[in-house]
C-alpha cells in the first residue's frame, strides 16, 4: 500500500463505497417499488419453476445472506476478511450438531447458530480490531485454513472427515408445499429479515460510525467514534450473518463436511461480493447470483476446462464494472432515466 | 530559462470542469504568483501544467507543446511540480529522495554537485541524509520536496502552497530560498499561494483566479497596490 498521504484512510473501499456507487445508485424513490416487485417475483417463483431452479435460487439467497454479512465488514467498515467461510462453517456445524446429536427441532438451530457465530466473531473481533487491511485479511484466512483440520480432529462431535448427514426440514402439512418450496420460503424469510435488519442498522448511528471509520479512520477517531467498539461489533454482526447462512445451508443440503468449507469458499465469497458490488445494497444479491450461476455457464462454454472460462469471466466483469455489478446495474438505470428525461 | 505560454487552458475532473479557458504568459526566469480564494482552481492549474490532470488548450514551454503528455513525459521535459502537502517518498531516505529528483537526467555528472548545492540552500537536510523522509518535520519535508524538484534542473518549477501548515518564520525562509533559486538558476517559477503577501513579495507578476477564470492580472506591484482588489479577492489588508 502506498504510504502517501492517502494511506491514513482505508485502503479498500473509498472508491467503491463512496463516490462511484453512490452516484449511480437506484434513485431512492424507486427503491421500494423495485423491492416490492422483486419480492412478489420471489414469492411466486417457486410455483412457476421446476424444483431444480427453486433449489438454485435457494442457494442464491443463502450466498446472499453470507455476502450481506461480508458486505457489512468489507463494504461498510472497510475491513477485509478472507475467513468468512469459517463463520459460515461454524453456523453450518452448529446447526448440524444440534440436529444430529440432540435431535433439536430445526427452527431452534437458527438462533443458536447465529449466537455461536456472533460470539466467535466477537471473540475474534477483539484482536482483529488491531489489524488493518491486508493483515486482517490474512489472519482471517488463517482461521479459515485451520478450521478444517480442527473439525476433523473432534470426530465424536463433528463426524470427522466423513461429516454429518441430516434429515432436511419437512414442510408442515398445512402449507401443501413441496420440500424444495418450503426450504426456499424458509430461506427467503430469513434473507428478507436479514436484509431489513442490516439495512436499518446501517441507517442508524452504527452505520454512520462505520462509514466514518471506513472513509477516514483517523478522522473518525478524532470525532469521537469509539473505533474498537464499532469495529468489533461489525465483525461480530458480519460473522453472525455468515453463521445464519451456514445454518440455512445445513437445512437445505442436509450434509456438512469439513472439506466443503475450505479457503476456497472464503475466497469465493469475497470474489462474489466484489463482483456483486462492494458497499452497495444490491451487491450481495448480485454476488449470490454470480457465485451460483456463472460456474454452470462456464461449463456450457467450455466443457473441458470450465475454470478457464470462469476465471476469464471474473476478470471481464471487473473490467466492465470495476465497482461491481451493482454499480453497473445502477449506471444502466441511471442512463435509462436520463434518456427518458430527455425525450 | 524558458517561456511558458498558456492558451485557452480548460481542465477538470470527470464531468466537472474546473478551469474555463485560462491564458497567460510567464517570461523566462520570472516568478509568477497565482492567487485567489479556495476552490478557484489554482491547484488544478498546476496539475494541468504538470500533466496530472488532463487539460485541453495549449501549454507550451520554450516552444514545446506539453498538453496531452503524461506527467512523467512532462517531467522529462524539465517541469518540476512540488505538489500540495508533502509529496515526498516517506519510506525512502532524504538522500534517496533527492537523487530521485535527478531520475530523468541521463548523465550522472553534476548530480553530486547539485546535491551539494541543495544542501547549501537547505542545510537542515544535510544533517538528516540517512533518515527517512517520513521522519522529517513538515517544514523539512517541504524543503525536501523543493530540493528534489531542483535536482531535476527544471526549466519550469511549479510550487503548490509552499507555506501551508508551516510556521511563519519557516515560511519566510522558504520564500527567501525560492527567490534565491530563481535568481541564481534563472528558473521560471509558477507559485500558487494563499498567503498573497508573501507570494507577491517574490513574484514579478501575478494572476488572480476566481472560479476557474483569471479575473485580474498584472505585475506584483500593481496587484499589491490595488487595495480594493486586495480586499475582495485576496482577503487581506495591505
Amino acid at each position, binding site marked *: 500500500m502506498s504510504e502517501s498521504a492517502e494511506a491514513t484512510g482505508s485502503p479498500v473501499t473509498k472508491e467503491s463505497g463512496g463516490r462511484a456507487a453512490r452516484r449511480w445508485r437506484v434513485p431512492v424513490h424507486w427503491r421500494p417499488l423495485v423491492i*416490492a416487485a422483486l419480492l*412478489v417475483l420471489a414469492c411466486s417463483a417457486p*410455483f412457476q419453476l421446476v424444483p*431444480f431452479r427453486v433449489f438454485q435460487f435457494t442457494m442464491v439467497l443463502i450466498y446472499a445472506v453470507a455476502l450481506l454479512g461480508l458486505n457489512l465488514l468489507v463494504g461498510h467498515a472497510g475491513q477485509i476478511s478472507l475467513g468468512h467461510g469459517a463463520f459460515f462453517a461454524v453456523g453450518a456445524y452448529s446447526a448440524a450438531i444440534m440436529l444430529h446429536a440432540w435431535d433439536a427441532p430445526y427452527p431452534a438451530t437458527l438462533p443458536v447458530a447465529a449466537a455461536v457465530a456472533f460470539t466467535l466473531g466477537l471473540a475474534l473481533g477483539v484482536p482483529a480490531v488491531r489489524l488493518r487491511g491486508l493483515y486482517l485479511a490474512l489472519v482471517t484466512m488463517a482461521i479459515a485454513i485451520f478450521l478444517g483440520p480442527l473439525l476433523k480432529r473432534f470426530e465424536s462431535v463433528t463426524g470427522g472427515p466423513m461429516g454429518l*448427514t441430516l434429515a*432436511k426440514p419437512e414442510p408442515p402439512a398445512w402449507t401443501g408445499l*413441496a420440500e424444495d418450496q418450503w426450504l426456499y420460503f424458509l430461506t427467503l424469510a430469513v434473507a428478507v429479515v436479514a436484509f431489513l435488519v442490516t439495512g436499518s442498522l446501517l441507517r442508524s448511528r452504527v452505520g454512520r460510525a462505520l462509514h466514518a471509520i471506513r472513509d477516514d479512520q483517523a478522522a473518525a477517531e478524532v470525532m469521537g467514534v469509539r473505533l474498537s467498539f464499532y469495529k468489533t461489533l461489525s465483525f461480530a454482526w458480519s460473522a453472525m450473518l455468515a453463521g445464519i447462512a451456514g445454518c440455512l445451508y445445513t437445512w437445505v443440503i442436509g450434509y456438512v*463436511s469439513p472439506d466443503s468449507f475450505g479457503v476456497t469458499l472464503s475466497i469465493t465469497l469475497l470474489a462474489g461480493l466484489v463482483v456483486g458490488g462492494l458497499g452497495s445494497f444490491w451487491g450481495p444479491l448480485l454476488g449470490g447470483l454470480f457465485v451460483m450461476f456463472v460456474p*454452470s455457464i462456464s461449463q456450457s462454454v467450455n466443457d*473441458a476446462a470450465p475454470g478457464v472460462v470462469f476465471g476469464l469471466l471474473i476478470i471481464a466483469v471487473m473490467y466492465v464494472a470495476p465497482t461491481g455489478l451493482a454499480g453497473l446495474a445502477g449506471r444502466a438505470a441511471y442512463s435509462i432515466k436520463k434518456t427518458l428525461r430527455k425525450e | 530559462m524558458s517561456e511558458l505560454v498558456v492558451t485557452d487552458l480548460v481542465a477538470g475532473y470527470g464531468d466537472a470542469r474546473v478551469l474555463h479557458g485560462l491564458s497567460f504568459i510567464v517570461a523566462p526566469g520570472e516568478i509568477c504568483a497565482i492567487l485567489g480564494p479556495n476552490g478557484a482552481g489554482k491547484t488544478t492549474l498546476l496539475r494541468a501544467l504538470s500533466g496530472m490532470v488532463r487539460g485541453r488548450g495549449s501549454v507550451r514551454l520554450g516552444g514545446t507543446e506539453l498538453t496531452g503528455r503524461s506527467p512523467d513525459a512532462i517531467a522529462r521535459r524539465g517541469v518540476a511540480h512540488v505538489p500540495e502537502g508533502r509529496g515526498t517518498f516517506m519510506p525512502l531516505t532524504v538522500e534517496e529522495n533527492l537523487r530521485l529528483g535527478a531520475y530523468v537526467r541521463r548523465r550522472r555528472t553534476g548530480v553530486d554537485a547539485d546535491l551539494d548545492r541543495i544542501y547549501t540552500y537547505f542545510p537542515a537536510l544535510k544533517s538528516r541524509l540517512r533518515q527517512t523522509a517520513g521522519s522529517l518535520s513538515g517544514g523539512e519535508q517541504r524543503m525536501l520536496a523543493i530540493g528534489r524538484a531542483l535536482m531535476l534542473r527544471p526549466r519550469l518549477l511549479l510550487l503548490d502552497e509552499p507555506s501551508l501548515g508551516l510556521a511563519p518564520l519557516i515560511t519566510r525562509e522558504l520564500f527567501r530560498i525560492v527567490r534565491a533559486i530563481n535568481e541564481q538558476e534563472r528558473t521560471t517559477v509558477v507559485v500558487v499561494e494563499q498567503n498573497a503577501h508573501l507570494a507577491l513579495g517574490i513574484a514579478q507578476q501575478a494572476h488572480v483566479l476566481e472560479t476557474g477564470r483569471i479575473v485580474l492580472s498584472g505585475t506584483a506591484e500593481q496587484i499589491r497596490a490595488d487595495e480594493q482588489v486586495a480586499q475582495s479577492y485576496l482577503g487581506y489588508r495591505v
Partner: protein
Amino acid sequence: MRVSVIGCTAMLLVSVAACGGRGGTEPGATASGPCQGQQATGITDKSLKLGGIYPLSGPASAYGDIPKGIKAYFDYVNAEKNGIGGRKVEFVVRDDGYQPPKAVEEARRLVEQEQVFALFQTLGTPSTTATWDYTNQHKVPQIFVATGASKWGTDTQHPWTIGWQPNYISEARIYAQYLKKDKPNAKVAVLYQNDDFGKDLLGGFKRAIEGSGITVVGEQSYEVTDPSVDPQMRNLAGSKADVFLNVTTPKFGSQALAADAKNTGWNPLHIINNVSSSITVLKPVGFENVQGVVSSSYYKDPRDPTWNDDAEMKLYKAKMQQYAPGADPNVPFFTYGWAVADAFNKTMSAAKCPTREGLRDSMRSLSNVQVGMLLPGVTMNTAAGDGFPIESMQLMKFKGERWELFGDVIDTRKEFGPLTG
C-alpha cells in the same frame, strides 16, 4: 418498504392457498407392457440418457479424465454396436468442483431438467453423500458411484445407490491378509489422507488385523492442501516400522514413494493403495526407486505388457485412439472409465425391464458378470444383502518397469465374510 413486505406476505398466503403447492409433480414417462407403471424417464427404444457428475474444475480436477474414458466407450458402442440393446447412449457430464452443494444442484439439474434415466457415477464420497437422499427419494438409479466408501454397500436405506470399485475396507483387508501370511509380526506405519477415504481404509485395516500379531506403530495424516508429506514421512521413519502402508492420492503417493526411497536408513515393505498404484504415479519417482512395492488391483493396467495380446486391451487401445484421439490410453482414469462403462452396459443389458426399476433390480442382482477390462477372475456379484459389485482383488508387486500380479485373486467376501455397517 414495510408496506411491500406485508403486501408480499399477503400475496404469498393467497397464492399458497390458491395453488396448494405445486399442483402435483408432473409424472414422468412410464413403461407399458410387462413392466407397466415403472419409470421410463430418459429412455426410449432408440435412446438412453445418462448423467454423470465429476470435478472438472478445482483441486480434484484430475478425476475429470474418467468421463472421457466413459464417453469414448459409449461413442464406440453407439457407433459400432448400435448402442446398448439398440439404444444410443447420451452421456451428460456436469462439473461439481468436488463441492457437495454444487453436486446437489447438478444432480437436480440432470434429473429434473435433463431428464436423465439414471445418474451414472457421482464422484467422491462427499458429493455422493450429499446427493443420495435426493436420488433415492426420486427413485433415480445412482449407479456405480466413483468412490470406495463402504457405506454404499452396507447401507439399506438407499437401494437406488450402488458403488462399483472394491471398497476401501475390502482393500485394507487384502493387505491385512497378505501381511498375516508373509509378515505375521509386522509393525506397520500408515500415512493416510485425512478424509473419508483415508479414514475408511485405515479403519478397515485396523479392524482386519485385530487379534493378529500385526500392530500399527505409527500413523500420520495429511491434508490435501498440504504442500508435501515429507514431514509426515520423517515422523513415520522414526517409528522403526517394517511395513509402510501408503494410503494416499496420486501426487502424495509419489511424494511418499520418493521420501521412502530417499531415506536409506529406513527400508520397510512399501504397500501403496490402489488409488495411487498407477504407473503414472510410480514413474516420476523413478522405477529403480520403487522396486518391490506391493499393491493390489482389480482391473488391467494398460502399461502392463501382460495384457499386450489381451483382446479387450487391444480393443480398448484401438477404440480410445479412434474415439478419444489425443488422449493417452495409458492413463488409468481412462481405463477405469472404459471398464465402468462396460460394466454399466452389461448391467443395463441384463435388466429385465428397460426402466429405472429394471436397472435397480439388475444392479442389485449381478451374478458373476464378466467385464473384459477387469482382471481374470474378478467378476461382478451382488445380491440381497450384498451391495458391493466388486469385492475381489489381486496382489501385485512392482518389478522392472511393471506390476507383476502374484497369488490368487482374493475374494474378500469369502475370506472375511460380508461387510456390514
